[in-house]
């Protein structure tokens, strides 16, 4: 018989396999202190570790998967809620706008019933078309009886007048603060007369007597002498009086906020000569 050997690596593997096999065999027959076979205990312990690791991996995967789905679902819900918030925000704004519009219309209605002239409510549908002019467009026109030089007023005061030829369903209104606009005015307290002239952003009171008593805070109203604006409507309040005698500069702040015009009244009856003289 001759000595034959495997290569060292295979030999070591074979040796280890045989040794492990015997150890497993022995373990299967030997009990631990608790009476459980060692093989069962070792196998159970080792397999429990594998099971624990497997369970951890499976748990992590399923947890991640569930969290992903939860996140996905949450993202969808979040998107839906955001859309609802936006829709509710818009709805709230609409309700507020409606309430504000109702309040303004109520004021207009009161004003309309308070003044003797015939008036027509109109909505401002467009603003300045050019920065050089201060005009707005309203949704009433010739079909509603509008024509040029009709006075346009608001609850706060005088707005301006209809200029140009109105269309059937729209008309252009020159604001009182336009550089080429003007209105006959008097100081309510001292009854000093003059002309309120626009300067683009505010008003100046011109052609006022050098002896007239005008002080800041005085209320300036329409005089009705221009044949356009009815008498007695508020134009603004004197904010400053500079200079003296004929070179006085009287600045008037309009009572109407021209940047927030929405509803106005068009005075359909032009003031008569008799009224203007009164």
């Amino acid at each position, binding site marked *: 018989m001759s000595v034959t050997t495997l290569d060292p690596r295979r030999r070591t593997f074979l040796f280890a396999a045989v040794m492990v096999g015997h150890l497993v065999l*022995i373990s299967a027959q030997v009990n631990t202190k608790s009476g459980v076979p060692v093989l069962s205990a070792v196998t159970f312990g080792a397999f429990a570790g594998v099971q624990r690791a497997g369970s951890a991996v499976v748990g992590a995967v399923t947890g991640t998967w569930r969290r992903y789905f939860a996140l996905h679902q949450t993202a969808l819900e979040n998107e839906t809620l955001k859309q609802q918030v936006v829709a509710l925000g818009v709805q709230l704004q609409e309700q507020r706008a409606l309430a504000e519009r109702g309040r303004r219309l109520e004021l207009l209605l009161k004003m309309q019933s308070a003044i003797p002239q015939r008036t027509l409510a109109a909505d401002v549908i467009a603003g300045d078309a050019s920065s050089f002019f201060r005009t707005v467009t309203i949704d009433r026109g010739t079909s509603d009886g509008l024509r040029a030089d009709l006075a346009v007023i608001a609850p706060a005061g005088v707005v301006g007048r209809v200029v140009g030829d109105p269309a059937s369903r729209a008309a252009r209104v020159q604001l009182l603060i336009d550089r080429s606009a003007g209105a006959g005015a008097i100081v309510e307290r001292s009854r000093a007369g003059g002309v309120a002239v626009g300067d683009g952003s505010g008003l100046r009171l011109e052609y006022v007597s050098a002896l007239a008593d005008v002080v800041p805070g005085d209320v300036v109203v329409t005089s009705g002498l221009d044949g356009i604006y009815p008498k007695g409507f508020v134009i603004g309040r004197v904010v400053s009086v500079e200079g003296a005698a004929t070179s006085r500069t009287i600045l008037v702040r309009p009572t109407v906020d021209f940047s927030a015009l929405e509803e106005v009244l068009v005075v359909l009856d032009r003031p008569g000569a008799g009224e203007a003289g009164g």
Partner: protein
Amino acid sequence: MAAAIVLALALQTTVAFTLASQHAAVDLVLIAVVYLALAAGPEAGLLGGSVAGLAQDALAGGVVGVGGLSKSLVGFLAGLVATQFIVAGAAHRFVVFFLASLVNAGCFVGLYRVIDPPGVSASWSALLTQALINALIGILAFRIVEGAPGWWHHRRMRRSALRSRGRI
């Protein structure tokens, strides 16, 4: 290999059993395994030791695997020695058999101590005596196995010569 192991087991359970004393017992299976390892190498020693040990365990009624592991280890180590050193002389073989017996006994007893604290007990003198007996029988076995073909041939030659003389 299988025949040697079966023969060793058969002799162990019959002849050696009856010859075993209270102080020492020969292990013919171990001798067969070491012989196999020295003759065929560590792999043969390992596998032969494993099979023989398991068979011995099964027949002995103890924990199956303890003897198998011990004899596998011994067979492997003896085979390794045979591949690294020239183990042709009787003295060398005696040392191998002797040490193999001690390693086998130490492994066997140690494993039982681990498995079952009371385990099997054996005195040093008994172990040494057994190792000595195993080594002597091992050398004898080598002599018998190695000398048997020559003796058989010599016998045949002698008988044939006697026949030819008688006829003459």
